[in-house]
């Protein structure tokens, strides 16, 4: 039932040549832009955080951008995805603008939630985005339900969500995975194995080496890929989405990666052996993809630099816009507990 392979060669190492891809050059260039956008938006947020402009905590995905981008890039327009707090990239792929992100993190009135909720806690079904709650694991049953709706409505969209190594220990993950398997719904679960749950190494969260082993308890097909190879992630996700769309039921993809910062900006990750950071720095997904593009002659240095420059220019504007935007009116706190409208 469960099939852990074929393991992409890079899976263990997370280095070397990237996977073969079906993406056109133009698409790969777009992937590059998204990767850069993901990282640079987070760099801006880090600056804003240090300037005390971010309200509350700041959570980043440095080193894991290839996962958010590669997985979401494989989705179709009608598919629905529920990103976690480290999946900014998935939101960017679905068309979330930097302004939305900056205003959310700065609690502005013009943010997607109007200041009601924080950071990446927002969604928009028009763009196929579901918002998380903080309780880890909860999105798995909920997205199984999104997938169930597709099945009941006889529509072809699939549901996708993410779970960290830590999150796979929650009861809701278990109930959601098992239910999705029994109901045979088109759910794709991306399990990000990044070595830590806050300060807790995977070894203290579970006695198994691969998150994919969790899937065997449900009879859900699982595969493992190098999470720092955006192309491998994309191809594996695409295959799973196709399988799910074709009626193959839920699929689980384990991506091996590493969290290159602390749990959040306030956490200096002193508990992480320095060597690990060095080892994984060499596997940076963006650097590797850049090398792939240049080595393959898919893009020139100049082209890539101009992409980055464009992104930076956009972010200059969006940061200023966000900073200039007002806080919400206090009375808004009263609005929206119930849906008051008529049948909608």
């Amino acid at each position, binding site marked *: 039932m469960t099939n852990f392979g074929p393991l992409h060669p890079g899976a263990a190492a997370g280095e070397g040549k990237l996977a073969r891809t079906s993406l056109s050059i133009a698409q790969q260039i777009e992937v590059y832009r998204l990767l850069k956008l993901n990282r640079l938006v987070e760099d801006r947020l880090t600056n804003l955080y240090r300037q005390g402009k971010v309200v509350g905590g700041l959570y980043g995905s440095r080193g894991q951008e290839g996962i958010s981008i590669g997985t979401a890039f494989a989705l179709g327009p009608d598919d629905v995805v529920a990103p976690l707090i480290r999946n900014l990239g998935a939101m960017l792929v679905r068309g979330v603008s930097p302004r939305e992100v900056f205003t959310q993190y700065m609690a502005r009135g013009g943010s*997607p939630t109007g200041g009601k909720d924080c950071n990446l*806690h927002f969604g928009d079904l028009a763009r196929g985005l579901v*918002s998380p709650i903080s*309780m880890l694991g909860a999105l798995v049953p909920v997205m199984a339900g*999104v997938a169930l709706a597709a099945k009941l409505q006889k529509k072809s969209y699939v549901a996708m969500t993410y779970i960290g190594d830590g999150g796979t220990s929650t009861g809701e993950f278990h*109930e*959601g995975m098992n239910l999705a398997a029994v109901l045979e719904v088109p759910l794709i679960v991306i399990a990000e194995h990044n070595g830590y749950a806050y300060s807790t190494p995977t070894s203290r969260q579970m006695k198994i080496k691969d998150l994919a082993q969790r899937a065997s308890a449900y009879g859900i097909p699982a595969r493992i890929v190098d999470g720092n190879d955006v192309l491998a992630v994309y191809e594996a996700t695409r295959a799973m989405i196709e399988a799910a769309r074709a009626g193959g039921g839920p699929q689980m993809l384990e991506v091996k990666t590493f969290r290159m910062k602390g749990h959040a900006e306030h956490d200096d990750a002193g508990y992480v052996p320095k060597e690990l950071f060095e080892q994984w720095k060499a596997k940076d997904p963006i650097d590797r993809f850049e090398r792939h593009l240049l080595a393959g002659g898919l893009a020139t240095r100049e082209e890539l630099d101009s992409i980055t420059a464009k992104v930076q220019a956009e972010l200059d504007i969006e940061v200023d816009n966000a900073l200039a935007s007002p806080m919400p009116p206090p009375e808004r706190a009263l609005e929206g507990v119930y849906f008051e409208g008529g049948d909608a």
Partner: protein
Amino acid sequence: MSEITFLDAIRQAILDEMRADPTVYLIGEDIGTYGGAFRLTAGLLEEFGRDRVIDTPISEAGFVGAAIGSAMMGMRPVVEFQFIDFIANAFNMIVNFAGTNHYRWGQKVPIVMRGPSGGRVSGSAFHSLNPEAYFNRAPGLKIVYPGTVEDAYGLMRSAIRDENPVLFFEHKYLYRRIKGTISADAAPIPLGKARIARPGTQLSVITYAAMLHVALEAAEKLAEEGIEIEVLDLRTLKPLDEEAVLATARKTGRVIVLTEEPTTGSFAGEVAARIGEKAFWNLDAPVARVCCIDTPVPYSPPLEDFYLPNADKLIARIRELLEA
């Protein structure tokens, strides 16, 4: 029109909504093949098939979560808890996910969560729960708790049509003990509206569900002595029909809130607190709570009888307040 039971009325309401709206579906444990532990969904699998009557593994958080996700995509799930006590296992999903979703990002979650609740059936601590007070504090939820066959039918239809997460509690003691008739053209009964079950002038008993019948029994007895008790059936507990609550309190000036739950932390406390704050100047006596003792629900009949309110206990308290 023939008489039907409280349980039949709920089934009928679900049936009528499923026939009227293809997005309505049922999900829960043993509701299909078996027709539910109380046979409330009997026959529905046969009419609607497995896509609309879904038997699940034992995973309350799992299927409540799935119901939430499907509701966001345009479905109208009706979730059954085999016994409402098992709602405890879905607490996070209900309170944190369903309850806050619309407030946080504007996405509605039309879902009904229902199941057999309440005691007096020797079910002991885990098959006798009245969960209203556990959920009344959670913003974004609605709570419905009918006490008559007509309300069970009309309120269930409204609950299914509601755009918000609705907890619909069904007192199992009433399932087959009370009967009524539902006219072919019976309309949905709006949520949020209490009902004067018996008009009176000297004291108001505010209650719902199985206790409604205890209140009516007591009122009946006292009427023989010429004591006129008003009985208000809340029907919807959240949002509370404060207007009706304050109106009856102001009218009689004496109020007892009668509920089947431990006194401490009870839903009755919320009702009493509102009256005490907003109708204070109209009160001629303290607002009293007649609830259960502060213990888990005990199993053995003598213990459970001691635990539960009944007409005699209520009458005794009524007399005290009338003397006040």
